[in-house]
């Protein structure tokens, strides 16, 4: 039906896995970017540690929770921002001739989700080492953290594509475009993570977690539909 499908005899999954492998290889070759990101998280956590140690000891659980999510939010913006921006227009044109745009957005989302999951877990580890560990329900907390990483990745991937199109100060633009979109998701994430901190029963967080999953699916589906239009320019 669509001419594009005849142009690409390779199945979508193969394209996605190839692109994903390419992204990982690029990341590994330019380790400075990955190192920079990890150092960013590490130094932010350390700054928080220092500022709280002035007051003596660890922050109270609500502040602990809020601070963790703020750190992760900024780390996510920085991590995702470089995805589309480090590619040159020539490179984009080259990919355009090779693969479907759907494969590109799905691969990018998957890659960002994995990257952010690693960053989030490492961030949590450093955070608990420096600022104490008030978590009472660790499995729910980590699951929520991973859900958050996936959610950040799905929302920010298309936003980073949009910001990259604008050129110029696209990192600022990305924060401006991304933050309001992420507020509803963040509110749900912080709520579930507070429930996990207090060790509340899972049934309390159930509806929020389901909404988060549904939200992730809506955002991923919308990106899948809209990205080809963005790519065409």
């Amino acid at each position, binding site marked *: 039906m669509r001419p594009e499908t005849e142009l690409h005899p390779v199945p979508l999954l193969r394209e996605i896995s190839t692109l994903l492998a390419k992204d990982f290889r690029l990341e590994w070759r330019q380790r400075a970017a990955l190192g920079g990101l990890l150092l960013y998280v590490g130094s932010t956590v350390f700054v928080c540690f220092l500022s709280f140690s002035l007051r003596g000891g660890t922050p109270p659980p609500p502040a602990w929770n809020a601070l963790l999510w703020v750190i992760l939010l900024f780390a996510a913006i920085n991590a995702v921002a470089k995805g589309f921006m480090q590619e040159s227009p020539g490179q984009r044109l080259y990919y355009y001739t090779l693969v479907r745009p759907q494969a590109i957005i799905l691969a990018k989302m998957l890659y960002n989700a994995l990257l952010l999951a690693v960053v989030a877990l490492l961030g949590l580890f450093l955070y608990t080492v420096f600022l104490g560990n008030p978590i009472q329900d660790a499995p729910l907390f980590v699951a929520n953290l991973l859900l958050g990483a996936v959610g950040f990745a799905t*929302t920010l991937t*298309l*936003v980073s594509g*949009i910001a990259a*199109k*604008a050129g*110029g*100060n696209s990192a600022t*633009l990305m924060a*401006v*475009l991304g*933050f*309001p*979109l992420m*507020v*509803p998701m963040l*509110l*749900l994430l912080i*709520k579930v993570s507070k429930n996990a901190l207090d060790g509340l029963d899972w049934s309390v967080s159930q*509806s*929020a977690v389901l*909404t988060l999953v549904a*939200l992730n699916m*809506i*955002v991923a589906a*919308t*990106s899948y539909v*809209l990205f080809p*239009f*963005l790519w*065409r*320019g």
Partner: protein
Amino acid sequence: MTTARIIGSLLGVVFTVLGVWGGQRLIEQRTPGLVWKTLTVLLLIAASAVGILVPVPPLPIVNESIRNLFFHVPMWFSMITVLLVSVWYSILYLRAPSTRLDVLAHESVKTGIVLGLLGLATGSMWARFTWGAWWTPDPRLNGAAVAMLIYGAYLVLRGSFRDEQQRARVSAIYNIFAFAAAIPLLFVLPRLSGPSLHPGQTGNPGFSQYDLDNTMRMVFYPAVIGWILFAFWLTQVSSRFAFLKLQHDEN
């Protein structure tokens, strides 16, 4: 009860679709459209005057301030309608790009922002007199603020392009994405997040169906229609102005 609710939501969907379809027709209308504009003026004046004068049921907490129902709520309804119209224009733009559709989408968003600010202002004033604070961290209020931030970001995004076609396409994409990602949640989140001070929530008296007595309904529905028509009128005028400016720049 459940059948009434199903019929109610179906009516809501029909009303929304009709609103978007009719809104487009009215915004793009080339004739003066005297009939519906007279109706808009009459409805707005009548609803405002009657809204202030009509006797209202004395309910706890809200009391006389329940009259804000005739101003504050219609503004949000018309904001959502005109933003839906804008999303529809953006979808049409992506299917068949044209400067016309881009201008229409942009002007609808601007009308939506104006109505959203009016809604925030009326809500804030009401909160000052009822709750004693201009702003509280209530889920509803947060949602409204987020919606304003999103459309502010839309304007910033439009401002950061030089190429007009690029700007039109990318802002259409952001418009659709933002609406799909955030606006439904602004309706879902307040229902999920438990206790709230906002009328109609968790047992607070206010605008839910059983509190609206029949006289209030007779004022509320015309006010909603009046404000929605007003939004279309505003968009029509501003988009005509934008078209004229475009023509002027071309010549």
